[in-house]
Structure formats: structure tokens, C-alpha cells
């Protein structure tokens, strides 16, 4: 292994452990190269120093981070409250929508063959005139509670 490759692996080691074979090759090179061994020692010492520095910075920034999180949490709660208590308009908005749906159902109820039952209110019917060119017609009246019937007798069939 040459020094150039060794330096690249030293930098790679700082980011995470090297594969076993690559680590063994690097260790072999470091044993015979004082310059690379010195570089490796310097890079290896940098990691803990950076971590310590980051910890110190985080401690310094903790109050500011806490304040920001409090604001974020308050905003979330505010949003939840607004959703829980909609205005009275929004609460009753479904009524006109339901009425509109009912009107639609009435309008577009199949009108071709209506299966709704008959419920006549009256059987009071006046037959002003009645005639037939090809049949005998009888008018049947069985009382006010029953409908009047016009009966067509076709060629004495019925």
C-alpha cells in the first residue's frame, strides 16, 4: 500500500470503521511508515475533540432550543383547539348539503315506472261523456268508498 492510499483510508476511518481487510492493510502500512502513523494519530484524536465541542455548543444553545420547542408545541395545540371547536356555520353546514341531496334524490327518482303505492284522496269523479267506436262501455258506480269504473266490453269478450 502506498502513502496516498493510506491517507485516504485514514480519512475514511474517521467517518466509520473500515472493512476488516482494508483495516489490516492500513495497520500493516502504519507499522512501517512513521509519517502516516503520525497522520493517523492526529485524525483519530480529532473525533473526540469535535464531539466534546458539539456537546458544549448544544449546552449553550439548550435554552434557545427549549424556547423554540415551546413555541412549536403551543402552535400545534392552538391548531388542535381550532379543529375541535369549529364555528357554528361550519357545524351546521351539513344541513343544506343534506337538503340538497334529498332534493336531488326526489328529482332523479326513477320516473319511468313508478313503484310507489297508490294513495287516492277521493273517488269523486264525474263522467261528462263516454263513447266507443268498437266496444260497449259500462259505467260502474259501487259507492263513494270505491272508485268509479269505466268498463270496456270488447266484442262481447269480457
Amino acid at each position, binding site marked *: 500500500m502506498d502513502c496516498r492510499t493510506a491517507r485516504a483510508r485514514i480519512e475514511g476511518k474517521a467517518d466509520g470503521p473500515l472493512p476488516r481487510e482494508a483495516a489490516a492493510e492500513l495497520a500493516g502500512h502504519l507499522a512501517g511508515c512513521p509519517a502516516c502513523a503520525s497522520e493517523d494519530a492526529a485524525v483519530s484524536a480529532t473525533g473526540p475533540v469535535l464531539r466534546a465541542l458539539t456537546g458544549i455548543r448544544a449546552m449553550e444553545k439548550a435554552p434557545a432550543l427549549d424556547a423554540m420547542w415551546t413555541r412549536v408545541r403551543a402552535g400545534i395545540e392552538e*391548531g388542535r383547539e381550532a379543529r375541535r371547536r369549529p364555528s357554528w356555520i361550519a357545524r351546521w*353546514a351539513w344541513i*343544506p348539503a343534506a337538503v340538497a341531496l334529498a332534493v336531488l334524490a326526489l328529482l332523479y327518482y326513477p320516473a319511468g315506472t313508478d313503484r310507489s303505492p297508490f294513495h287516492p284522496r277521493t273517488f269523486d269523479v264525474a263522467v261528462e261523456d263516454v263513447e*266507443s*267506436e268498437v266496444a260497449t262501455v259500462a259505467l260502474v258506480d259501487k259507492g263513494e268508498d270505491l272508485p268509479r269504473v269505466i*268498463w270496456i266490453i*270488447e266484442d262481447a*269478450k269480457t
Partner: protein
Amino acid sequence: MPKPDPRGRAGAPALSFLLLLLLLAAVPSEAADTVSVDVGSVYASNEGTSIDPALGTIREKLHSMFNYTSYRMLDRKRRSLSVGEAGEFELPGRRTMRATPLPSRGDNVRLSIQISDGPRKLLTTTLGLRRGGMVLVGGPSHQAGVLILIISAE
């Protein structure tokens, strides 16, 4: 942080009201000079003993008036007609019925009815009934029984 848009909430009911208004405007208003003619074609026979539930309260009356054991509604049609406007109703057995509302007063309806079997005019009549009233026209043969027409006007 995005906040809920209050205009969206106010828009929903407004849109619903608008839809309702549009629908109400689309509903044809029943003017006083318009008659809704309803014609039900009932097949009465002695084949079986069933009575169609769609006949409603008229079932018992049909049973008490005629000597048939089975009543089945084959078809029912409703048409809104203005005074003087003739409405054609197709009946079972290639028969037709033509109904024409005539001028009338108050709650009464006058209907000119003509029932034809091809070129043959089976019946020509003029009826005076109250709105919501009903009359039966029966007798034309159909299959193994007869046809009874339930004619009502609203």
C-alpha cells in the same frame, strides 16, 4: 407553520346554500294550470292469487270490486301536462292512451281521455275529478285476463 384557512370553512356552507338554491330553481314549479296525470296498468287475471304491493290502498278495493284472484302492476307512468297539452301514454298490448287536461275551476281537473288499440278507438271520455282523485278503466283483454288502468290526476 400553516394555519387552517378560515375562508375554506366559510366557503363550504356558502357553496351548499348555492347548490340548494340552484336545485330549487331547477325544480319545475307546479303551476295551477298544470295537471300531473298518473296512469298505472294492472294485469288482472285468475292466474295465481298474488296482489302487487305497489297497488297500495287500492288493493283491497280491486279485490272487492272484481272477481279476479291476481292483480299485478305491469307499468306506471306519470306526466305533467298543461291545459290543452296532449300526453301520450303507452299501454301494454300495444295500446295507447292520450290524456289532455281541459280548462277547469278551483280544485277540479277535467281530462279528455282517449284509449286506442291501433286504429280502433276503444274509449273516448271526458272526466271531471278533484286533484288527488282516481278513476278505473278496465276491460281490454290482455293475455289470460284483462287490463285495468288506474288513472289519477294531481
